[in-house]
């Protein structure tokens, strides 16, 4: 008995030791370097600093994925600190780990004051649970200037939860970029059907030129071919996205989707993507296009400009654009979802964070961001001066964006992007059929819907 008491006592001690180590007051953040100036930080009241009559300098923490924060935004953050004394501490996480880190932080209640996230209804609801984790921003001034399509992507059940400061056209459109000189040399013209596109590829293959640079090794790029053709799916089958969201249609049963997937496989099997596509990397795209080794690639409208920056002897005018021609698509995709900024509902500095977002979205600061970011040609706010090149403008005039891409329009597609990529590689290498890939997408959608307790999947 005595022994038992002693053992239990030791156990209790151990537990108390651990409990003692872990229990800490709900501190706002572990990394709180003091801001330089003790200037007034309006509206950022600090209840923890009870005895101090003066307001304490505030540091806002902001977590985002690599590539989402442009240099110009960091400059604006410095300017903001000069004006208000509020320091913004940016925490940039590598892209492939970002969502795991973010979700862990949100789930453990330790998210930063502002967190970045990809917009889109599924992401808002399923990935970040914004109704619980983010602050309602519907009453902010900038909401009225935000482009409606983008605003819809950061809204859920009628409330605005985020700010999407992004070029949703030039940086978000993935289209076929082609080398006009190569096309001209071989008497080729821009294809308007898949059959014509195949002929273009065959002519180039016969001439010993690799038709398309398709970097499959990154895992995400070759997936673009499918959901980006969403506007065409919608054109052939009006209301399809709604049916998919209501669970009254399945990817595997839609003929136009089967057609697109089969055609993509056909392109791979023809050798249009070159011999080394499975090992090719996206980071080499500019080099491959600039060298003329490849005639085309799927990339953004800003690619030619960045090619010219990297290779000054290859002017941006060398390249033209056309929409991905799977399933005879001739529509440009509208893709309003993009990296967005949310304020964490558990943040002790909600007002300061709102103030920072308002500062970033002041018209003159948005214009500064646009003018000083080479990847941006326009921003999704009214009243700004865009900077389109003649080629970009020609594309926008020729191929109007009718409806939005399927990763934005259809629930549970964007979160399984990399899985679709793996399945597609399975299709290219012969272990899956195009029908299997579509059935697999349906299966994962059903799994996610079940986890999210989606009523459309409930029965």
């Amino acid at each position, binding site marked *: 008995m005595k022994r038992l008491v002693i053992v239990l006592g030791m156990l209790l001690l151990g537990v108390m030791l651990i409990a003692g180590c872990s229990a800490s007051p709900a501190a706002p953040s572990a990394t709180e370097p003091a801001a330089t100036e003790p200037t007034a930080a309006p509206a950022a009241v600090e209840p923890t600093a009870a005895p101090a009559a003066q307001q304490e300098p505030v540091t806002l923490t902001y977590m985002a994925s690599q590539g989402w924060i442009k240099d110009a935004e960091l400059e604006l953050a410095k300017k903001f600190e000069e004006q208000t004394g509020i320091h913004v501490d940016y925490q940039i996480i590598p892209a492939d780990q970002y969502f795991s880190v973010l979700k*862990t932080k949100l789930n453990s209640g330790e998210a930063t004051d502002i967190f970045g996230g990809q917009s889109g209804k599924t992401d808002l609801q399923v990935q970040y649970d914004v109704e619980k984790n983010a602050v309602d921003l519907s009453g902010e001034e900038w909401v009225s200037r935000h482009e409606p399509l983008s605003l819809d992507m950061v809204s859920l059940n009628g409330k605005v939860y985020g700010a999407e400061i992004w070029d949703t056209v030039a940086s978000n459109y993935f289209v076929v970029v082609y080398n006009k000189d190569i096309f001209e040399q071989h008497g080729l013209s821009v294809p308007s059907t898949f059959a014509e596109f195949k002929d273009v590829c065959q002519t180039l293959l016969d001439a010993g030129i690799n038709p398309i640079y398709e970097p499959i090794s990154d895992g995400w790029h070759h997936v673009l071919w499918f959901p980006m053709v969403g506007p065409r799916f919608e054109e052939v089958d009006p209301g399809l996205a709604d049916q998919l969201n209501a669970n009254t249609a399945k990817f595997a049963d839609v003929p136009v989707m089967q057609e697109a997937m089969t055609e993509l496989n056909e392109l791979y099997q023809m050798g249009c993507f070159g011999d*080394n596509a*499975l090992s090719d990397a996206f980071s080499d795209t500019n080099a491959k296009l600039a060298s003329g080794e490849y005639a085309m690639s799927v990339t953004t409208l800003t690619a030619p400009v960045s090619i010219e920056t990297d290779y000054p002897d290859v002017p941006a005018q060398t390249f033209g654009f056309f929409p991905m021609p799977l399933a005879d698509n001739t529509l440009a995709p509208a893709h309003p979802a993009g990296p967005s900024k949310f304020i964490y509902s558990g943040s002790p500095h909600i007002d300061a964070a709102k103030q920072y977002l308002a500062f970033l979205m002041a018209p003159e600061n948005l214009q500064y961001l646009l003018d000083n970011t080479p990847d941006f040609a326009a921003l999704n706010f009214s009243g700004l001066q865009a900077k389109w090149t003649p080629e970009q403008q020609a594309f926008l005039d020729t191929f109007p964006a009718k409806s939005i891409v399927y990763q934005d329009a259809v629930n549970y597609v964007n979160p399984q992007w990399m899985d679709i990529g793996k*399945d597609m590689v399975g299709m290219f*290498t012969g272990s*899956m059929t195009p029908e299997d890939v579509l*059935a697999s997408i349906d*299966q994962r959608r059903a799994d996610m819907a079940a*986890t999210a307790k989606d009523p459309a999947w409930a029965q």
Partner: protein
Amino acid sequence: MKARTYPFYFAGGALALYLIFFVIPSIMGIFYAFTDWNSYSTEVNFIGLNNFRTIFSSGAGQNYLHFIRNTIIFTITTIFLKTAIALGLALLLTGGIKRLSYFHRVVMYLPAVLPILVVSLVFKSILNPATGLLNTFLRNIGLDFLAQRWLVDIHLALPSVIAVDTWRGVGYIMVILIAGLMAIPDEYYEAASIDGASGLDSFWHITIPLLMPVLTVTTVLNLLYGLKVFDIVFVLTNGGPGRATDTVYTAIFDEFSKGRYGMATTLSTLLFFIMIILGYFVIRLMHRETEG
């Protein structure tokens, strides 16, 4: 039993820490295998054997059995390859090659010292079908037909990963076997040769039986490593092309990053039991051989 020098509770502190940090989390882990724990909801519901059922019924896009098959192929092949090559090298470096034998041992051991990540990244570049060192070399000496798409051909990817892992792991096993070989007294071989035994006879009837305890250790080490393989596959192929080289641990990582913690825990629980069962049988089997 009553003559113990120290009372039982002296071990209490250590025992408590062990209990809190190892035993309880392990049991909790096994418990989570029976739940739908995920990152999308704060609720954790008990769902019985549903996760196990999913693994063994493998619907479209969820080839869990395929991952388990890959893991077992990887484990068995690497055990045989590493043991056979390491034994050959160990014999060479203890008996055959006299000159610079220590230098050779160090060279052979070197890959085991390098981080797996570095080895994998280097091999990823060597095995690149278009620009890789291996294919360039093969093409330059006129062996074009041997230049393959090593890591991206569905039939060659797993063998390529196995080959790289064997290259990396063989030195480590060799060092253990060398230690085992050096512990065998020379007298046995002398006595055998006086009795007219050939080199092969000595190998089968002296070296192998006396080396068996060491071989048991290396086999168990290889077995556990093989079943848990992750980093080398992750960097070389990331489970690709498609899902051709996915193993149980890459699948666990995948499930975790998708926020399906319950499923990931189920997979690791399953692997935990497979390891215990296989480890137990391997040790018993090899132990019996040494006794018999």
